[in-house]
């Protein structure tokens, strides 16, 4: 027991020395001559000069492109100009940098430029698309959109009179019902693929892969042919759409959870088994909680996969102009269906309704993502705040 005490003491002095130092510091400072504040060194690899060079290359590439494409040749269009200017810019940047700093630095700069422009090339269309939808949809978006359906709106009414509650309710119900099927099935399948030694893992994995390649319209067609046409004749309903969406969502969720479970270290499984746990208990109490964030990511990806699907809804939930809270009977609207319905109309006000629907769909997806993230992290945040409240 004394030895334990000793080593506990050896841990103690750390704090003391810290205290001593700080107290010595406060005593000493008035006597010391004021030292100049330390100058922080710049460690950034790019200098202002580099930026001027990049700007110069960009300007000369633009001018050269204009000269070649419009003075010497006839440009086939702005896209060709862009490609030529981009390639000229890269070439100039490489040559100028090689002249200044040598071959290695030039290659480095060239690759950096390609990588950065790749990221920008991905972001710009996304922001453009979001901006486009917002500018088209936001001016006519009124609170009434969230409180009314389209049954009392005449086709000639202005876009501000649009009501989309029936579509929002439909989307939420169909997606939520699909989640009810997909989450248990997908997680169980992933557990089967990862945690068992069954001979059937290979064929199941191949099936899941094949399913993820299934065109969404085929999923809808299958439900239509199998359940809505005679002899079953269950009729159009939100639930039929749910079934089609389930088929699309299941492989996405299964594959993602599969990958996430594979990332859980084997050491944790062994630790659990060595404590006397069964395999099922290990999966439930150790593997899945460890992979919690990953599983919530899988659900997000699953939602993202289906919430904007339009094709399978056309002949399963069919669509409707009025509110239908019951997903199990009668046609039901959903947001993608709503957008599709109005965007193809010739009337400008109807098209605007479509843009409002698209905007609300995007907002809804953001909200669902945020919610899923919150649920995935809730446990940790509550744990972290606990000790603080104890003190």
């Amino acid at each position, binding site marked *: 027991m004394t030895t334990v005490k000793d*080593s506990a003491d050896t841990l103690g002095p750390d704090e003391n020395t810290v205290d001593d130092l700080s107290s010595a510091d406060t005593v000493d400072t008035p006597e010391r001559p004021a030292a100049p504040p330390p100058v922080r060194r710049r460690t950034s690899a790019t200098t202002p000069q580099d930026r001027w060079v990049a700007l110069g290359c960009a300007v000369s590439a633009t001018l050269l492109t204009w000269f070649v494409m419009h003075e010497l040749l006839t440009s086939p269009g702005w896209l060709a100009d862009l490609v030529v200017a981009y390639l000229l810019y890269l070439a100039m940047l490489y040559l100028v940098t090689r002249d200044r700093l040598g071959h290695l630095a030039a290659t480095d700069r060239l690759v950096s430029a390609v990588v950065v422009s790749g990221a920008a090339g991905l972001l710009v269309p996304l922001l453009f698309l979001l901006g486009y939808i917002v500018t088209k949809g936001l001016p006519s978006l009124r609170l009434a959109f969230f409180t009314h359906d389209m049954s009392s709106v005449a086709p000639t009414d202005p876009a501000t009179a649009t009501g989309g509650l029936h579509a929002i309710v439909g989307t939420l119900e169909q997606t939520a019902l699909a989640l009810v099927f997909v989450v248990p099935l997908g997680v169980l399948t992933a557990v089967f693929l990862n945690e068992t030694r069954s001979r059937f893992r290979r064929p199941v994995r191949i099936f899941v892969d094949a399913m993820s390649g299934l065109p969404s319209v085929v999923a809808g067609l299958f439900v239509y042919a199998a359940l809505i046409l005679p002899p079953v004749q269950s009729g159009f309903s939100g639930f039929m759409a749910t079934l089609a969406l389930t088929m699309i969502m299941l492989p996405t969720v299964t594959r993602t959870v599969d990958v996430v479970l594979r990332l859980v270290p084997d050491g944790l499984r062994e630790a659990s088994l060595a*404590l006397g746990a069964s395999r099922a208990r290990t999966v439930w109490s150790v593997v899945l909680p460890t992979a919690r964030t990953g599983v919530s990511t899988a659900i997000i990806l699953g939602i993202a996969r289906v919430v904007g699907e339009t094709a399978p809804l056309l002949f399963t939930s069919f669509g409707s102009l009025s509110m239908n809270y019951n997903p199990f009977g009668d046609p039901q609207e959903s947001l993608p269906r709503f957008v599709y319905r109005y965007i193809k109309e010739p009337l400008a006000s109807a098209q605007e309704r479509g843009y409002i629907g698209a905007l609300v769909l995007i907002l809804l997806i953001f909200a669902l993502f945020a919610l899923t993230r919150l649920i995935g992290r809730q446990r940790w945040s509550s744990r972290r705040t606990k000790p603080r409240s104890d003190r």
Partner: protein
Amino acid sequence: MTEILDAPQPVRVVGGPPPGAATLESRGVHAWFGDRLVLEDVSLAMPAHEVTALIGPSGCGKSTFLRILNRMHELVPSASLAGEVLLDGADIYADGTRAQHARLRIGMVFQKPNPFPAMSIRDNVLAGLKLAGVKCGDKDGLVEQSLERAGLWREVRDRLHAPGGALSGGQQQRLCIARSLAVQPNVLLMDEPCSALDPTSTRRIEQTIVEISDEVTVVIVTHNMQQAQRVSHHCAFFLAGENEPGRVVEHGSTEQIFGEPEDSRTHDYVNGRFG
């Protein structure tokens, strides 16, 4: 401090292993991975209340043997074995004996610390109860007792709800020891528990091993000769020739193995001539 030292009644768990340390004995244990024989005819007695060290160079089957002792060997898909492992005289591989039951009575600490990252320190200690279905009336007392035995209580008692993964490597390993001790096993197997740790943490864990050996039989695999000498009562020297399975060259009391070994290879190994 005084109330910890004077704690009269140790906290007991219900539905766990029978109390006290147990004797572990292997008889004619062979092990294969696929068709490759990696361990041949290991017969070794590991007496209750004592620390047995398994020493020998890498790849001689020490860890495989250790994993056979609590039926972790069979988790490797291609693995198979022959022979018996007797826990207080009863074969843990006998028909009708569940691997879970054997593992509950024979705990294990691994080379790499593996606390459950999704659980707090407290939940990590109590994980064994939940996982193995063992009950305990005084959970707070059990947490304190287990962490105290593992030499970690003082360092973590103010942050029992912090995540277990936030501790240092040495603390994590002691947390894993506390987790194994919480279900109160009869035997504790340790697979190079200090190989990833700094000297200070190693010393703490060695103290822990010495302290817990009155409650539980300890079998430890180590590459560190001094460690084997410091903590163990018995030693078994494993050796595998080239393309040959591992065998026990010599076993006996630690003084004998390190002082006057009978086999020249043991002498060379414990004196650092090879391996």
